[in-house]
């Protein structure tokens, strides 16, 4: 794809997040590794509770206690950031890593003007005077396609529509020019007609500036539209990762395969949607071996014993002992 994966913006190695509870130690994120290159969009999919958002929060340093990073490494442009103090991490947020949340209606402070929220962010990270910050704020609004930015900068959030607010959120996220953006379900709360616009906007701006994007969603359609690569998570672990067209066309992990054929957009042309039997195991009751084994048609004894398979099991593509070999996929 032409992305420089040798010098990734973000690099996770064996990232593990733990939550201590009365019923024992939970691992909502368990040994997750991936890289994102400059200008690349990595889509992360998985069902609720698969650890997508938790991974994003761990990267930006916003895990709510008692959740904490218990192992592995997070590197931003080669520098380890998971060991930084909370104040150092705070300086990084907004400046180097931006985050977009699901609901634009609640992401903005209702009592402050859009412009004030922009300038406070700009002046926190960049050494600019009030006027320069204001000009930059207007430019940022203009860039995300808000008409008459010079006037709208004085608006309050409630005077904007949902789509406009998400545009303002994107402006806020990008205004200090971060090199990595974590977008956590950025379009889920929006009207379908607005979703495509927002995704296109996000894609254009990040491409232009060489920003790496971690796009968290459960909407395969959004991934197909925007992402360069796709990572499928299941029960806190990475199930499959690869080039988006390749994975969508020829998924190798049985869970990825099941997920795709249960999604209308991705399985267009197929006679009918399939469902995956059963439900994702709870984190309190993860089985030994592969977490998906109980729901998997291909599972054999090896899947139910010992350590869970990791991405190395299939040359870094799939965490499965018996990946689907295309050509033998059932009709």
């Amino acid at each position, binding site marked *: 794809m032409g992305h420089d994966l040798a010098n990734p913006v973000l690099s996770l190695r064996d990232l593990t997040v733990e939550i201590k509870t009365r019923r024992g130690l939970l691992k909502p994120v368990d040994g997750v590794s991936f890289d994102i290159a400059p200008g690349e969009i990595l889509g992360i999919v998985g069902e609720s509770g698969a650890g997508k958002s938790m991974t994003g929060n761990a990267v930006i340093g916003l895990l709510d206690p008692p959740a904490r990073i218990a192992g592995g490494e997070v590197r931003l442009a080669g520098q380890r950031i998971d060991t930084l103090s909370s104040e150092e991490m*705070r300086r990084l947020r907004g400046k180097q890593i931006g985050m977009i*949340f699901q609901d634009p209606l609640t992401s903005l402070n209702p009592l402050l003007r859009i412009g004030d929220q922009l300038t406070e962010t700009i002046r*926190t990270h960049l050494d600019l005077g009030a006027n320069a910050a204001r000009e930059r704020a207007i430019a940022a609004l203009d860039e995300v396609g808000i008409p008459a930015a010079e006037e709208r900068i004085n608006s309050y959030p*409630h005077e904007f529509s949902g789509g406009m607010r998400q545009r303002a959120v994107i402006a*806020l996220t990008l205004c200090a020019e971060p090199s990595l953006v974590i977008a956590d379900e950025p379009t889920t709360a929006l009207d379908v007609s607005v979703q495509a616009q927002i995704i296109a906007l996000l894609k254009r701006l990040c491409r232009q500036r060489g920003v790496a994007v971690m796009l968290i969603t459960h909407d395969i359609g959004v991934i197909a539209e925007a992402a360069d690569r796709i990572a499928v998570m299941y029960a806190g672990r990475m199930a499959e990762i690869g080039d988006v067209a390749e994975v969508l066309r020829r998924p190798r992990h049985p869970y990825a395969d099941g997920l795709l054929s249960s999604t209308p957009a991705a399985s267009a042309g197929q006679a009918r949607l399939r469902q995956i039997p059963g439900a994702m195991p709870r984190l309190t009751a993860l089985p030994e071996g592969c977490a998906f084994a109980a729901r998997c048609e291909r599972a054999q004894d090896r899947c139910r014993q010992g350590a869970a398979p990791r991405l190395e099991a299939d040359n870094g593509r799939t965490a499965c002992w018996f990946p689907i070999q295309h050509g033998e996929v059932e009709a």
Partner: protein
Amino acid sequence: MLAYILRRAAQSVLVLLVVGLIAFSMFRFIGDPIDNMLGQEAQQEDIDRLRTELGLDAPLLVQYVRFLSSAVQGDFGVSYGQGRPVADILAERAPATLELALVSGTLAISFGIVFGVFTAIRRNGFAAQAIMSLSLIGVSLPTFLIGILLIYVFSVELGWLPSFGRGETVELGWWTTGFATRSGLLALILPSITLGLYQMTLIMRLVRSEMLEVLRQDYIRFARARGLRTRTVYFRHALVNTLVPVTTVIGLQLGSIIAFGIVTETVFQWPGLGLLFVNAIQFVDIPVMAAYLMLISVMFVLINLFVDVLYFFIDPRLRVDRSEASA
């Protein structure tokens, strides 16, 4: 905005009328003022003559309308007990009550907000937990008991502070102030703590729970994700949002500080409106009671109106015209 205030003012007048009527009709159950004024040996004809003179033989509604029509002209009648115009008595007593309310209200609001924010931010810290436990005392101990305990410790045992009265006061026109002398200020300490403690713990607990709620909101998360300084997140984003609902309660509490200073004023023999009212009840001094109750309801209504107007300045969402509110 203006239309809104006018509409609220009209509603307020209605509320005042109703409150006045209810209060007025309740006086009938307190006792007969004539008994108190003439004593048990009175002749029936004297009783009847006085009753007619005071207008007490007229139907309740007529009495009420008479009271209202002279009240609007600033005439609240003559006190049965003291034989002086009620308006004069109230004006004489008001400074003591208002100064006490001002001091204890300021204490309650400032300490309430500071402690509330502190216990919300450091919610698992030792100090915050200790404050929360102590605040239970403020909420659950009755005012008179707190007053008596304070008097016992600081006046009787330690002898640091006076146990009753206003101390020396200075006259500024018709206003008498206790702020100007040392003994006046010392005399304010115990009553204002007694009166403000409950309000303070209430405000503190409210600020704390609202703040914890606000801190869970997405815009706080987003403010953090933008790398804003912790101080900015807490005070510019979280606290201001917390104050929206808290403002209403604070407004109402201010009203009750003035209105229900009765207990505190009695415990400390504070020469204010509350003490006046208590004495008036004992004497069935209807003009004083009626004037006091009307005064208190006017105060509540004004505070409510003020709080509503304040909302306009705090919350931009209310400033929108109805027509564009659906945008």
